[in-house]
C-alpha cells in the first residue's frame, strides 16, 4: 500500500481542497503527493499557527481544510488551537508526524514526543496514533468524524508507520 497516496485519496474523497504544510522528512512523500493533485490547493506555511489561520479562513470561505505538520508544532499552536480553532468551533484535521517515537534517530525529538499526547489530551483534542501501515485504513473515518464534530483532530503518525529512516 502506498500510504502517501491513500492519505491524499482520502482527503480528496472527503472534499478537503485546501491543505497547508510545514515540512518534515517523514511527511515529504505525502506533501509531494498533495502538491501534485489538482483537487487540492497546497499552500506551504512558514509556521504552524500561521497555517491554522489560513485554514480557518479557507473554512469560512467554504473549503474544507487540513494541516500537515510535525508534533513539535503542538508547542507552537496551543494558543491558536484554543482561541481560534476551538473557540470558533472549526474542523481541522491535523496530520502530524510523531517525531521522537520508536525508530527515531534524533534524541532531541524525544523531548517534545513525551509531551505530545499529554498536551493534546489537556486540550481535549481527539487523537489517533498510526503505528502500523494498516492503521491508515482508519483515516477516512477520522476525516468524517472531524467534519461531523467541528473540532481539531490529531492524527499522530510515527516513524514505524512511515517505514523508519532507512540507514540512519
Amino acid at each position, binding site marked *: 500500500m502506498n500510504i502517501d497516496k491513500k492519505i491524499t485519496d482520502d482527503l480528496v474523497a472527503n472534499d478537503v481542497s485546501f491543505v497547508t504544510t510545514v515540512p518534515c522528512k517523514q511527511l515529504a512523500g505525502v506533501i509531494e503527493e498533495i502538491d501534485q493533485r489538482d483537487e487540492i490547493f497546497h499552500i506551504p506555511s512558514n509556521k504552524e499557527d500561521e497555517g491554522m489561520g*489560513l485554514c480557518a479562513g479557507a473554512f469560512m470561505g467554504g473549503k474544507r481544510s487540513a494541516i500537515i505538520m510535525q508534533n513539535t508544532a503542538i508547542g507552537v499552536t496551543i494558543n491558536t488551537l484554543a482561541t481560534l480553532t476551538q473557540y470558533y468551533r472549526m474542523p481541522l484535521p491535523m496530520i502530524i508526524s510523531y517525531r521522537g517515537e520508536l525508530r527515531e534517530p534524533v534524541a532531541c525529538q524525544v523531548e517534545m514526543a513525551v509531551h505530545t499526547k499529554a498536551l493534546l489530551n489537556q486540550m481535549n483534542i481527539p487523537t489517533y496514533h498510526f503505528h502500523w501501515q494498516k492503521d491508515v485504513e482508519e483515516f477516512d473515518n477520522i476525516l468524517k468524524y472531524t467534519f461531523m464534530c467541528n473540532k481539531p483532530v490529531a492524527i499522530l503518525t510515527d516513524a514505524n508507520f512511515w517505514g523508519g529512516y532507512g540507514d540512519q
Partner: protein
Amino acid sequence: MIRSEILKEIAPIIRDHLVVCNIGLPSQELHMIDDQPTNFYMLGTMGLSSSIGFGLALSQPKPVISIDGDGSVLTNLGTLPTIANNATGNYTLLIIDNGSYGSTGDQPTYAGKKTNLTDVARACGCDTVIEVQDKDLGPVLQSAIDSDEMTIIVCKCDSGNIKLPVITMDPVVIKHRFMEAVKA
C-alpha cells in the same frame, strides 16, 4: 489621526466587503463604529488576521480586507512571504501602523523604531505595497479593493486609544453570521 478615527473614516468603504479584523481594540472599535455581518472579529490569537483573511481570499472570489496592526504583523512576520508567493487579486492587507502595541498600553513596536514594514513587505516579494498617511487612506483603500491586484497598505498614523466595551458576541455566532455573509 488615531486608529479609531481611521476606522470611522473607512467604515463606508469596507461596509459591503468581507473584513477580517485584528484582535483587541481594532475589533472592538470596528464593532462599535459599524457592526456588520461581513465583519469577522478576532477575539484571540494575535497575529493571524492576515492569515485568516488570506485563506478566505484564496477560497472564494469576493474581495477580502484584513485589518492588521504593525505589532500583529511583527508577531506573524512569516505571513508576508506566504501572501507574496501565493498572491490573489481579491485580497487587501491593511496594516494600521501606529508604531505601538495599542491594545496592551501603547508600548512601542520595532515598526515605530528602525524597522520599516513597507520595506519588509517589498523584500518578502509583495508586488504592490503602498505606504500612506492616515488622512490619505480612503481613496488608496478604495482603489486597492477595486483593483485586480493584491495590495498591501501600510497606513502610518498616531498611536492612541479610545475607551470602549469588549465584544460580548459569542464566537460561534460571529463565525456563523460571517459565513452566511460569505455565501450571500
